[in-house]
């Protein structure tokens, strides 16, 4: 381990000589971001208002599955032991009248209907149809996926998203492709971090610039594919502040695995301050540097 890193340092030092002051600031002490919440072999921390319903359904389903499997398994093992081939034991030709199995199947089907109609459909309907209204004062953000990063487009102080178009896209300076001549787009902010207020409905409009990605917020129980050519909204409401991870859940190319972004759930004021700060374009004035 030591020898290669030593070599590396030497090489870096040579680079630094050539580069002059540019590399003088090698390795500043930037602490790693601490992710909020607990993660383990079960569902992660829940941080959204409506995600509880999804959790509840998953938990009911697993109890149901466990009961079925154990019940079924007991019968299975009983048969294997009781009817194993041995001296003096013979199979019976006549089929048994298995009423129990018929009732069992009806019960399973009935329970499935109950799950479907009673739980899954209402949850899915609320996920898909209960879009927050203007009265709910939703916080709006656009999410633009690309290989391999998430861009978050905030409307800025005027609350208006600038017009966008593929022809304006510049990966370095205008990743969202905002029309530079559109007055609505002048104060727009596009960043690689999602900052949202807590306890306020969020509407995120998802789109993709290239291939299919999937916007996955594990702690919010939110997942939605981003399909190029479509703008698909999702909504949720965060109930706890903290820093959470945003994952891409659909294979999108070589570096799919590194397509991660951070979501900061903050107070209303903090989000406002951050957007204000982010809207200032910082000038790189050290002209001597490349």
């Amino acid at each position, binding site marked *: 381990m030591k020898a290669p890193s030593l070599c590396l340092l030497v090489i870096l030092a040579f680079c630094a000589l050539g580069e002059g002051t540019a590399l003088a600031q090698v390795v*500043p002490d930037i602490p790693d971001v601490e992710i909020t919440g607990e993660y383990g072999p079960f569902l992660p921390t829940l941080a959204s208002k409506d995600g509880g319903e999804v959790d509840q359904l998953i938990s009911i389903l697993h109890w149901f599955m466990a009961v079925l499997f154990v019940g079924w398994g007991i019968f299975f093992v009983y048969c294997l032991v009781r009817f194993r081939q041995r001296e003096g034991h013979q199979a019976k030709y006549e089929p048994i009248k298995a009423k129990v199995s018929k009732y069992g199947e009806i019960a399973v089907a009935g329970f499935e209907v109950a799950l479907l109609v009673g739980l899954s459909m209402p949850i899915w309907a609320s996920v898909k149809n209960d879009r927050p209204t203007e009265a709910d004062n939703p916080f709006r953000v656009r999410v633009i996926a690309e290989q*391999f990063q998430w861009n978050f487009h905030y409307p800025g102080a005027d609350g208006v998203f600038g017009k966008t178009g593929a022809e304006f896209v510049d990966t370095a*300076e205008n990743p969202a492709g905002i029309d530079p001549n559109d007055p609505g787009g002048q104060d727009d902010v596009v960043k*690689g971090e999602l900052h949202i207020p807590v306890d306020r409905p969020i509407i995120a409009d998802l789109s993709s610039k290239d291939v299919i990605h999937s916007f996955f917020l594990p702690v919010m129980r939110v997942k939605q594919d981003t399909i190029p050519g479509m703008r698909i909204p999702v909504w949720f409401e965060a109930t706890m502040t903290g820093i959470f991870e945003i994952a891409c859940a659909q294979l999108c190319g070589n*570096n799919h695995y590194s397509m991660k972004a951070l979501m900061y759930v903050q107070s209303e004021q903090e989000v406002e301050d951050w957007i204000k700060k982010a809207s200032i374009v*910082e*000038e790189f004035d050290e002209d001597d540097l*490349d």
Partner: protein
Amino acid sequence: MFNSKTVATVSMVTFALVAMSGVAHADANVITGKVIFKGNAGDYKRKVIDTSKDPNCKKAKTKIGSQKVIINKKTTPMTLRNVLVSIKDGLGNKMFPTPSEPVVLTQFGCQYKPHVFGIVAGQKLKILNGDNTNHNIHFLPKKNQEHNFTQPKKDMENGKVITLVEEDVFKVKCDVHPWMGCHIGVFKHPFFNVTGKDGTFTLTGMPDGTYTLEAWHEEFGKQTASVTVEGGTANVDLTFEPGA
């Protein structure tokens, strides 16, 4: 899957053949000059690039700036950095040896270094990753073979070696850090140079003759100039005047 020894042997034999055929002379000719920028430098302010997406970038270089247009404001007249100047016409069908030393492209601080460079067709290009993060190198050539590969780990020793064979000027970008881009010019001859902090370029060793020089800039396009050189130094300036 050739190993490096075979490649080296083959290229040495090629050099020998080229040298024996005597098509090229290393004359002491020099073409020099500068690339002048005319216009309002204030229109082209460099922005600080937001690298917060990947904390490992900041760990290498706290602040990086846009490299699209860099104007050397301190020179008089103002000059333009990162302009690729090369001989476009006038060499005829002459052949020149391919340098055996590889050109090195380094990724450091989530930026390419150098940002614009030339390479001789057939010369090796070695790509190193100096960052403690995953980089994806995506070549977007017009004539050469497309490459798209990853370097998920820091590696300043071996790197990945690529050979470009066709004359071409194209962009290379990183798909993980979308702001990262650099430009490569591939030439059949070694007479090219990129302007730096003083905005000058120097081409050496071409045979006597009259040449068309081409200056290429990623944002402002191309400019050409004619120059004659006979046993000495010729001087020629090129000018970019955006909006004119």
